[in-house]
């Protein structure tokens, strides 16, 4: 592992900066407390006091690490305080949303490539849909669906799908259109119909593009689910942990949930990356 050295150096630099920032940002509270008691604090007293607060402005790395560890391993996984439980709630909605979103994205891409009317009509709408801030429409989707009796993971999955279909459409359209004129002509000289050239040429050509956009899509799915959890009254899910943490000033809880979401995203992207590697390897495209 030749790359490990530089990565560790960068990581150490980030942690060091983070500690400095924590001392600096949490110092005000220590000074306030001391002023109230009519004392002055020395630097040696200040530093430990800034790194051990219950509700710091910026929790120190070891506090976040402890919060994350407690959340993941310190509870029964069925407990409402367990990050595993909340991550599972978020993951299931993300998975459902991603499946809906990428399936819709692939179908739309096939339609766009094969049908000129769809090419002209769908793409502008797809682009327009992504220019609307998701934070603005997420509560509307939740409220409208709740009022029609649809609750649980479905509304969150729909928001998640809404964010993930777009990269899949764009990538898949580009992939399906990637064969050049010569390759398409070759198909015509063999008297191949549209369906045959789709199966034998366009679809296999699109695979590298598809997987690249699925990676973007699954990360977008996770963001969509978390945004969808914010206005649900904070019952469960990593989004609700973020929200309740901010209600009660539990900054350690917020940061722990953020890191859990980050780990989840990394895991999901790695999963797609693995599927990509296996598929392209079997196709002879990975070298």
């Amino acid at each position, binding site marked *: 592992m030749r790359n490990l050295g530089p990565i560790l150096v960068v990581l150490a630099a980030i942690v060091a900066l983070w500690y400095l920032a924590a001392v600096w940002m949490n110092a005000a509270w220590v000074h306030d407390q001391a002023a109230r008691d009519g004392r002055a604090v020395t630097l040696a007293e200040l530093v430990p006091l800034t790194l051990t607060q219950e509700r710091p402005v910026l929790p120190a790395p070891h506090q976040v690490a402890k919060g994350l560890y407690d959340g993941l391993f310190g509870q029964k996984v069925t407990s409402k305080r367990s990050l595993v439980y909340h991550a599972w709630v978020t993951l299931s909605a993300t998975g459902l949303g991603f499946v809906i979103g990428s399936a819709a994205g692939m179908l739309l891409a096939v339609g766009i490539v094969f049908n000129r009317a769809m090419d002209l009509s769908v793409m502008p709408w797809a682009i327009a849909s992504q220019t609307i801030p998701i934070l603005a429409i997420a509560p509307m989707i939740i409220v409208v669906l709740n009022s029609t009796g649809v609750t649980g993971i479905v509304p969150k999955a729909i928001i998640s799908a809404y964010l993930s279909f777009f990269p899949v459409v764009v990538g898949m359209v580009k992939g399906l259109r990637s064969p050049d004129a010569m390759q398409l002509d070759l198909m*015509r*000289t063999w*008297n*191949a119909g549209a369906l*045959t050239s789709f199966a034998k040429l366009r679809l296999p050509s699109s695979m590298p593009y598809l997987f690249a956009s699925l990676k973007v899509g699954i990360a977008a799915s996770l963001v969509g689910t978390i945004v969808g959890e914010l206005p649900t009254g904070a019952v469960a899910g990593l989004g609700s942990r973020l929200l309740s943490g901010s209600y009660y000033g539990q900054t350690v809880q917020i940061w722990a949930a953020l890191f859990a979401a980050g780990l989840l995203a990394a895991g999901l992207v790695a999963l797609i990356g693995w599927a990509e590697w296996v598929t392209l390897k079997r196709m002879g495209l990975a070298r």
Partner: protein
Amino acid sequence: MRDNAAVPGAVIEARGLDLVFQTADGPVQALKDVNLTINKGDFVSFIGPSGCGKTTFLRCIAALEHATGGSLTVNGMTPDEARMRRAYGYVFQAAGLYPWRSIAGNIRLPLEIMGFSKAEQAERVERVLALVDLAGFGKKFPWQLSGGMQQRASIARALAFDADILLMDEPFGALDEIVRDRLNEELLKLWARTGKTIGFVTHSIPEAVYLSTKIVVMSPRPGRITDVIDSPLPRERPLDIRDSREFIEIAHRVREGLRAGHGDEV
């Protein structure tokens, strides 16, 4: 196979063929009054400067373009009908092998599309691989082969389904001189063994003279035929035939034809 009624033995027959492309800058006359008869077993080269319609004429034969005037028959049928009956294989300048298929898989592709049985596919792949001197390379992927070998694989692919016309558009244009010489020699052997009718586009006078039984000299704006030379060279052609007097005389006539075509344009 049906023979053409008008000219016995004619495989491809063009009469007064015109093709005008409608472009944004107005009409472009790519072919004007092209008359040509290609007989069964001919090796015909098309030579001429860029833009004289060589590619367009080949594409008309293959029904990839459609003439706007005149008539064109392939095996006595329209080019579209001929394609439906798998009359020809087409080789482009780039090999255009699918990177996700092995060499054998690439050659099998047209056979799959045309619905040959699995056993027949395997048998034919082996046969054409041997024909282009690539036996044993079936399991390799395209990126593992040199450019010359890839082009041989693409020729094998065009031969796999027994078309009796082989259309080649500058197939060796992207290869270096030495590889090109070898492939030319092999192509002649392959032609002698299979008895195919070959239409071959090239920029190179020696290549045209070395390979062809008939050399079609073309000139641009509008694309037309200025000379058709029936080669007196024997069918059996060692590489050193290129130093013979006859060879040099034909090359000279081709060069004159090219110059004449150029002259009346400026």
